């Protein structure tokens, strides 16, 4: 909402300096988004007196004038206007002036005569639509004075952010009331004097509301015999200050009144409305099937069934509250104007304007709600202004269909409740004073107020609404700051939240950096990574995605993490160590909300460090990724964790595993399949990755691990190398060794896995460092020898291996 300070001062006294007023509005809920200075652009335009006027010797239509602009000598100005005489005063743009239309005045020869400036029309000054001749000023206009100053053009316009609950502030009078309330002044409603004559309006017009739920009131006045033409400067200027383009005197009047009082008006050319029983018969109804309307902007629009229209018997003539029709528009030949002032349903108006992408000043106001009880005042104001600027006579009477009268709300307000909710100690006088300045009526005994709310404040229907008004105008800054006093509360994290924190810390400790990637997925992701959904499962589709490549919700974090690696590589960052905790989704036929699953995932590419003076920069692979997950699992105190080789489509065969916690598969780990990397343009070497479901991980976690006694007797170290054929996993060999060693085998550590010379092809030598230890005594050589022989024998036979010689 643009508010002209000049206009505002006519409606309320403003004594504060501008900056203080802006601050005060900000702090009472009407945010001032910008302050514009208007009129400065007319610098160089002054009031001039035409001394002489002679026909140009070489041009029929031009005049050569001498003009006194208060300088040392008169200026010679060649002029094309025809509507002036010597002795007239006009605005003169001197050389060097840039007019609002962008033209800069230069000293120039016009048909051989040097012109030293320009005598201006209203259009050239951007203050009206009359371009037919010079803008003739009153005879007392002081020569040489800057035009903007003389004309009172210098103005300041505030751009206000009006919240959706305050339709009243979409009008000058509403803003004036608001300014009055916060500065302790009373706003002045513009007065209207109307003279009616001729035949009564009822004789010429009839109105029927078919659907009162969508139109609670429809009022109309008829003004006969108007002369449509350019608006006078004051009107054009005022309309322009609201940010609207002046059009003609009729339209400008309706716009002026809308901005002044907040009620949109529409003007019909009465003669274009169909006659029924000798009357212009209007009905307010829903659009008929297949009905179309050509709107003011010349577009033919198909009307949906729930579109509210104004119609005559031939069909729709206007979109109620949104836009008029081209056929009934006021034109230069219009004689009788039918002014409409109505109250249309906010939701219906909003739907129509959104569906047709027609957001107008009128639709915006109807959508937020206009005051039905103001309709007739607005009509009177518009009719009287119309007669003033366009002549004609106002037909006696008002058409007023008002099937659903708006009733002022009567709202009880307890001062005690107000203070209890705000934490204040305001007294009745302070509270009542604020409410009354807002235009509310306050009655009732000391603590229990009865507040009558005028219908222009539809947002105030409950006690709490009034409490908000009071604290807003009183000043939120004046409310004492306290902290809630409630007893018996303890802050903290839940067990799962605390475990999730630990999981993150473990992954960071293992070298991974936290990433947040998009929750969206590309429909081609599933195919690219070969993702296999369950029999009934399918990815979650967005109905209105921002783009095609983000039209699903992700079902895995892998595509996002591969993209992250690829993006980093493209930027020259080769070492990428990331983890992410977030949700993945899928759905199934019959499901409303999709299944949402929290996962933890990670990716490793490049090496831990760039090759350095003391670091070989070893390429990261599956083994490093497994190490990270081992750290995670250890930090969470999860005992039963293992990998099981498995062929997964998104992973490289032979470097691909399922992750098991307590015997259940909770995710996967491996190196991403080279062709998957290729499909994401992720060149530059292997990428290891994992993704685990968070829930089973957190569930298996232990927060307290019991103490285990430290060994009291020395252990005996022995090495053991077993050669096994391919396909026997190291994990199984280790288990065989452990089970053969029993309780006395205290430690088993795989220290070498060797293939090559000395080991038969198709075989691997697995070398373990063993520590035998007895809890109660130092083992003797004999005991150890016997034990070790048993381990060798049982382990080799259990896995079909041989002791390496």
């Amino acid at each position, binding site marked *: 909402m643009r508010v002209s300070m000049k206009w505002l001062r006519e409606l309320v006294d403003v004594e504060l300096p501008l900056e203080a007023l802006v601050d005060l509005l900000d702090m009472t809920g009407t945010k001032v988004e910008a302050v514009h200075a208007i009129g400065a652009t007319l610098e160089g335009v002054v009031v001039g007196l035409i001394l002489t006027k002679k026909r140009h010797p070489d041009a029929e239509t031009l005049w050569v004038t001498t003009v006194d602009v208060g300088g040392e000598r008169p200026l010679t100005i060649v002029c094309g206007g025809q509507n002036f005489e010597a002795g007239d005063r006009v605005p003169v743009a001197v050389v060097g002036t840039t007019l609002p239309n962008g033209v800069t005045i230069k000293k120039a020869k016009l048909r051989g005569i040097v012109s030293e400036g320009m005598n201006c029309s209203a259009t050239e000054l951007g203050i009206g639509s009359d371009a037919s001749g010079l803008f003739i000023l009153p005879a007392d206009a002081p020569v040489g004075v800057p035009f903007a100053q003389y004309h009172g053009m210098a103005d300041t316009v505030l751009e206000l952010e009006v919240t959706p609950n305050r339709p009243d502030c979409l009008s000058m009078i509403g803003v004036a009331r608001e300014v009055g309330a916060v500065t302790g002044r009373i706003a002045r409603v513009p007065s209207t004097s109307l003279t009616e004559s001729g035949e009564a309006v009822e004789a010429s017009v009839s109105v029927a509301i078919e659907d009162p739920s969508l139109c609670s009131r429809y009022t109309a006045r008829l003004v006969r015999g108007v002369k449509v033409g350019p608006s006078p400067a004051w009107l054009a200027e005022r309309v322009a200050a609201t940010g609207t383009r002046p059009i003609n005197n009729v339209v400008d009047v309706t716009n002026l009144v809308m901005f002044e009082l907040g009620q949109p008006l529409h003007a019909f050319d009465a003669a274009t409305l169909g006659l029924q029983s000798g009357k212009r018969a209007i009905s307010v109804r829903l659009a008929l099937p297949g009905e179309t309307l050509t709107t003011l902007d010349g577009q033919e629009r198909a009307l949906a069934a729930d579109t509210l229209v104004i119609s005559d018997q031939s069909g729709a003539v206007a979109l109620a509250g949104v836009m008029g029709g081209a056929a009934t528009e006021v034109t230069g030949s219009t004689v009788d104007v039918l002014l409409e002032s109505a109250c249309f349903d906010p939701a219906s108006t909003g739907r129509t304007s959104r569906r047709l992408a027609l957001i107008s000043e009128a639709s915006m106001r109807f959508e937020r709600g206009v005051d039905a009880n103001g309709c007739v005042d607005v009509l009177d104001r518009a009719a009287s202004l119309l007669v003033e600027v366009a002549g004609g006579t106002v037909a006696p009477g008002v058409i007023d269909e008002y099937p659903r009268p708006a009733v002022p709300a009567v709202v009880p307000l307890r001062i005690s409740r107000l203070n209890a909710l705000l934490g204040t100690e305001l007294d009745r006088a302070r509270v009542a004073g604020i409410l009354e300045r807002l235009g509310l009526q306050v009655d009732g005994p000391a603590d229990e107020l009865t507040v009558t709310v005028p219908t222009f404040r539809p947002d105030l229907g409950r006690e709490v609404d009034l409490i908000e008004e009071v604290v807003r105008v009183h000043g939120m800054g004046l409310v004492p700051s306290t902290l809630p006093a409630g007893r018996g509360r303890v802050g903290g994290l839940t067990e799962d939240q605390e475990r999730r*924190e630990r999981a993150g810390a473990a992954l960071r400790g293992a070298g991974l950096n936290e990433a947040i990637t998009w929750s969206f997925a590309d429909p081609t992701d599933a195919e690219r990574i070969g993702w296999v959904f369950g029999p009934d499962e399918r990815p979650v589709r*967005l109905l209105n995605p921002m783009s095609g490549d983000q039209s699903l919700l992700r079902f895995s974090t892998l595509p996002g993490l591969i993209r992250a690696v690829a993006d980093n590589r493209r930027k020259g960052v080769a070492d990428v160590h990331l983890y992410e905790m977030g949700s993945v989704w899928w759905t199934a036929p019959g499901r409303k909300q999709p299944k949402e699953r929290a996962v933890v995932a990670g990716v490793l590419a490049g090496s831990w460090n760039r090759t350095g003076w003391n670091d070989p920069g070893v390429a990261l692979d599956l083994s490093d990724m497994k190490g990270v997950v081992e750290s995670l699992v250890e930090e969470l105190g999860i005992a039963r964790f293992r990998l099981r080789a498995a062929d997964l489509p998104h992973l490289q065969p032979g470097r691909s595993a399922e992750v098991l916690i307590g015997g259940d598969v909770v995710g996967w780990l491996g190196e991403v399949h080279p062709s998957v990397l290729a499909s994401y343009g992720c060149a530059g070497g292997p990428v290891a990755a994992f993704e685990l479901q968070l829930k089973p991980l957190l569930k298996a976690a232990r927060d307290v691990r019991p103490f285990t006694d430290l060994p009291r007797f020395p252990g005996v170290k022995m090495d053991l190398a077993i050669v096994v054929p391919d396909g026997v996993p190291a994990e199984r060999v280790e288990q065989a060794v452990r089970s053969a060693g029993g309780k006395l085998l205290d430690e088993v550590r795989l220290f070498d896995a060797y293939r090559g010379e000395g080991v038969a092809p198709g075989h691997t030598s697995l070398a373990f460092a063993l520590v035998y230890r007895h809890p109660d005594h130092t083992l003797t050589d004999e005991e150890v020898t016997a034990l070790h022989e048993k381990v060798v024998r049982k382990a080799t036979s259990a896995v079909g291996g041989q002791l390496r010689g």
Partner: protein
Amino acid sequence: MALIDELQELRTTGLESIAASDDLAGLEAVRVALLGKKGSLTGVLRGLGALAADERPAAGKVSNEVRQALEEALADREAVFSASALERRLTAEAVDVTLPGRRRAPGRQHLIEKVTREISDIFIGLGYRIAEGPEVELDYYNFTALNTPPDHPARNASDTFYVEDLSGDAATVAGESDVLLRTQTSPVQVRVMENSTPPIYILAPGKVYRRDVADPSHLPQFTQIEGLVVDEGITFGDLKGTLEHFAHEMFGPDRAVRLRPHFFPFTEPSAEVDVSCHLCNGAGCRMCKGSGWLEVLGCGMVDPNVFGYVGIDPERYSGFAFGMGAERIAALKYGVPDLRHFIESDMRFLRQF
């Protein structure tokens, strides 16, 4: 007394050769030559048996003295050698301490998670718990129960992401589904109020989604942190005091805080919260667009209509709610000029914080 003379001679020559030895190996050779099984002293003492019985004690005494003298000299000489050997080793092992260290750098927490954690800790300190909920929500929890009218612009398909509903239910909002990506974490608050009784002190951080094109100041996916308190006797002053405490913890104890009245459907009264700019101390700079204030929060007293939806008696209980964007807070506090950094996973960005 030829034997004793021989011993004295051995002492003299022995001490000379010990002194003349160059290193530990030479010294060891000297020791073997003097005191070994086939050494000089053994050789001389072989003549002991040939002596008369009364001469033997004197000769034995001298031989012990010579042995002792030689052993002492050997030990002294060895000490000299090992000290210098250590010295040489230490010299050889000296390094350039300005060379980079050997490390595997621990990973970093994402700035948004870090800020979220920082904010959570402030409110945990005030007795709040952390509440969570689904990111794909029902219209009811995201809008209706939060007092959002059916035609509210936020519900438009141009603002909110809607998700395919496979249940076969008809949507309550024409042309759209009742399943959506939550646009705020307020639905978590509704669920908590539905499932528990006051006192309620919760903070609900989490991802939210709005249909904005990603640009320096918008992301279609971002992180919202909302708080809710419902208890007996909660006042607007409590809300103000709570947010002032938060602002001082988050942005520094000298920050000024102001509440500007605003409008939200789910709170009444509602306000926006500004914190005085920490870069210019309120004088006005580029960060605060010259105003001296940074808008960081929206807040208000819980609207009685919202209590109505979840069955809490608004005459007995009152409450407040507030919400902020973690990305905005992080951008303001750490001076990140473009929110898109948060979602791009650039290692060089992630490693900074």
